[in-house]
């Protein structure tokens, strides 16, 4: 099977996987005791109130109809075009769009996942390599001990120790939240377009004239370089050019109408840079440091052990000896030859762990008051927010499949045998 058809099959297979996952969550949530309708009423509730709420939440319909509605919503193209994410229904607790809620919580999770993954993999792999090279020495034992201990230590324990040391005693870093309490969260890049709006046409003309002039000059310059002229290629390019131009002019006109163009990623470290606010950048990095270190150190244990075992096996292989015999540098042999060959199982683990983190690191997020997906899911399970849980699980399933797809492609890159 070629790589392309392999990837296509993998992508197609995600659909039944997700459907199965969704159906299971759909049923399991409804089997659990507890009723989101009653939970809206802390105290007294008349029967008509309960009935109203049941209708409001769409729970008055038979189960199959609820299921069909949900699936139908997921593939509603109009909704996706209007909101930019699939219709995951309205939350049963807050009546807001679940898609919107998940996407608002996701950047926090993503930011934490990225940084802790970097810490975990760099630390884990390096320590693993060092341990395998100094096999059975004291250093090896120490690193192995470190791997085992970090693997076993609970997140909240290490987190609280860090908070106590760096937050309470040394007062270097904030103990929680995504940015120090007295600093406002970064808003990203905001461009105020105060241009008097002449509407679509005038903006189109204005930007076209400027753009076309420059393009013409560039084309003229290219001509000098004797680029071979081909009509078909030119026609297609021209069409693409014009479409891109219209889209661009329309978008810019739209933002001029709104008067404001906002670019925000939701990742505080990046948003503060976009905002060009060094104070916020430093504060957001400081706030990230403790949670990502905690998570990174705890995850690194697994990589230490995995790298060490695999490296030990690889270092014994003939080609390593041959490479050494040829007089290659020690580091080239270790990192360029041996590590690359020992990397496959580590890569799988990297992908799996990253996908896990994208679902929200519940304990870390709670310990550091980090408003991400993990806390969202826990809160919503307590409330029996069926739609929110379904949405979160669908998204989680999507992350896992996406990440494993990427891992598979990387596999093919690292190990050409797979491409055969």
């Amino acid at each position, binding site marked *: 099977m070629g790589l392309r058809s392999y990837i296509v099959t993998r992508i197609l297979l995600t659909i039944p996987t997700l459907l199965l996952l969704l159906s299971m969550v759909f049923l399991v949530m409804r089997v659990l005791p507890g009723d989101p309708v009653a939970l809206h009423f802390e105290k007294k509730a008349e029967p008509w109130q309960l009935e109203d709420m049941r209708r409001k939440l769409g729970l008055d319909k038979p189960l199959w109809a609820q299921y069909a509605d949900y699936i139908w919503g997921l593939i509603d193209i109009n909704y996706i075009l209007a909101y930019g994410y699939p219709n995951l229904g309205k939350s049963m607790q807050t009546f807001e769009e679940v898609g919107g809620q998940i996407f608002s919580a996701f950047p926090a999770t993503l930011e934490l996942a990225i940084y802790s993954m970097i810490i975990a993999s760099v630390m884990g792999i390096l320590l693993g390599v060092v341990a395998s090279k100094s096999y059975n020495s004291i250093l090896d034992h120490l690193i192995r001990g470190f791997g085992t201990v970090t693997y076993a230590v609970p997140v909240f324990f290490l987190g*609280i120790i860090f*908070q106590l040391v760096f*937050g309470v005693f040394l007062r270097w870093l904030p103990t*929680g939240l995504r940015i120090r309490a007295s600093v406002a969260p970064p808003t990203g890049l905001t461009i105020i*377009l105060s241009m008097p709006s002449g509407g679509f046409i005038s903006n189109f003309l204005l*930007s076209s004239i*400027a753009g076309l002039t420059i393009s013409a000059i560039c084309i003229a310059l290219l001509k000098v370089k004797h680029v071979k002229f081909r009509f078909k290629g030119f026609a297609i390019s021209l069409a693409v050019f014009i479409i891109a131009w219209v889209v661009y002019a329309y978008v810019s006109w739209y933002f001029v109408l709104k008067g404001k163009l906002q670019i925000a990623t939701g990742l505080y470290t990046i948003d503060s840079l976009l905002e060009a606010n060094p104070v916020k950048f430093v504060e957001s990095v400081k706030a990230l440091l403790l949670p990502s270190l905690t998570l990174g150190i705890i995850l690194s244990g697994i990589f230490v052990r995995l790298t060490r075992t695999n490296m030990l096996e690889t270092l014994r292989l003939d080609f390593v000896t041959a490479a050494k015999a040829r007089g290659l540098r020690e580091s080239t042999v270790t990192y360029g030859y041996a590590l690359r060959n020992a990397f496959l199982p580590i890569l799988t683990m990297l992908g799996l762990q990253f996908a896990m983190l994208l679902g929200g690191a519940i304990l870390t997020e709670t*310990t550091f008051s980090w408003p991400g997906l993990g806390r969202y899911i826990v809160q919503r399970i307590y409330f029996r927010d069926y739609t929110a849980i379904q949405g979160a699980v669908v998204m989680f399933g999507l992350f896992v499949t996406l990440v494993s797809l990427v891992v598979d492609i990387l596999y093919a890159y690292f190990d050409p045998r797979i491409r055969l």
Partner: protein
Amino acid sequence: MEKIELSIAVLVLIGIIVSSSTMYYTSTVISNVSTVSSDVLKLAEAVANLTLTIGNFSTVSLEAIANLQAKLAAMEAALAKMTLAKKTLVVGTTDSVELTLDPAQAYDYFGWCILQQIAGTLISVKPGSTTGADFVPELAVSWNSSQDLTVWDFDLRQGVTFWDGTEFNATHVKYSFDRAIALITKIPEGAPAGLGYGDIINHTEDLSKYKVRFHLNFPFSPFMGILACRASAIVEPTYAPIAQINHTSGDPRASTPVAFVGPYFLSEWKRVAGRDIEIKLDKNPFYWNATSQYPKTEHIIFRFYSDAPTLRLAVEAGDVDMAFRHISPTDVLDLEQNPNFKVWWGTGAFVQYLCFQTKRAPFNDTRVRVAIAAALNRSSVCKTVFLDLAQPLYSIIPPEMLGHTEAFKKLGDANYTFTRSLLAPLGYNETHKLTFDLWYESSGHYPMSAEQALLYKGALDASGVMQVTLKSAEWASYKTNRDSEIMDAFVYGWYPDYVDPDDYSFLYWASWLHTNYSNATQLALYNEARATTNLTRRTELYAQIDNIAVEQCSVVPVYVSGAWAVTMPNVDGIYLDITQDMRYWLIYLK
């Protein structure tokens, strides 16, 4: 890709970049030109003024100039002092606004807390009140009620303005209450529905520009308490459509319909996934009491922590100036020992009680219920679990409040002889023990439930004639269990909507507890208490209700919570009274 296509694509990119910068540049230029031209006009005006002033100046003596200089220096010094003083209070909490800041829906502690800072009600409870019945004027300056308590008149404060300059008047009051009542059918989970606005208020009438009249359906003495709660906040018709509630979204002004006639206005409200991550309140320059220097702190920033331990760490690390709700009893006692922090103590209003399913054996027998009530050991629960930060409760009405009694003291605490004597005739003894399941909530809906439950079991088992099995469920299941009446004995809690015994006393027979207990005499006494403003008479009536409750023990009060806040030593002006309100506009930083 062909080379030419690639180069065209590059050209498109270059074109887009160049043209967008052109656009950006032209737009800046255009806006600059307009600013400059208006600046030029202003400059010309200023020059004209200056020449006029210089003309007048020659007449001013040198002495006056010296005087002016001295005044300026004094002002400068004062200004420097002001800028040095901290103007922002950072508050850490584990709360979050549940759904909205619309008084027609909000029905949670923190939502009400924010509403209190930004919205205005006709009256409020005096800070530091012990009974919760001392009302002070807010948007109403005086009031009176008819003899039969069904007609209430309020004279409104004059000269209060909204943001856009609109003057507050009686039509706004009428609109606010009409809207709250109209939305009850749409928002069945909202506070006006829960508090029964529709049943209590017949209609509201604006008698004149500054006089408003409420017609009630029945005599209702706690009406003042209802008016002081946040569901009675005045809304601004522009932002409060009559037929729909205002939901959370982007612009803080558009996300709450309340007229910002309170001490603060909402300047920032960010939520992630249905939970707050930032709330910022700024001083409201239009506040009617601004002349008395309220609010005392210009900005309040709320920051949201996930649980009590993380909040405590944030306090200790100095990340927040103040932590309110929820720091655990152990932590607060610990912090009290630390001179770097100040702990504020107050009265609590949350009560916890035991409920019995009275329709089934064994609890259909009153003697069994009384026997259990007598075997409870309240002080050990308060001491062991709450480190004496909660108080034993011997009436469903909390201490200091009107109508509070010590009725349940009659049964005693850990009064095992009495328990045995009651159970012996029913055939329960050391060999044939009374066995039953005691349920508690396990997901933290109430504080320290599991620890409490262990002590309840310990106290009851210690009687020697009972064998208690503990069972638990997390909140969602617990509530379903309550409604389907499968729990024979369970622990429940109550947090008041308005500070009045009227909002507590009915718990003995509340139908939604599903204890299947009802008592016509108690109900009659309760309704009589509702219909009189005579405080002595009301006290008597609630005492009578308590006396019957002790004999029936359908619901047995256990404890009333305490309240506390932790601050940095420079924070002052905190009142933690029975209303449980945190009045941020009184807080100041030294």
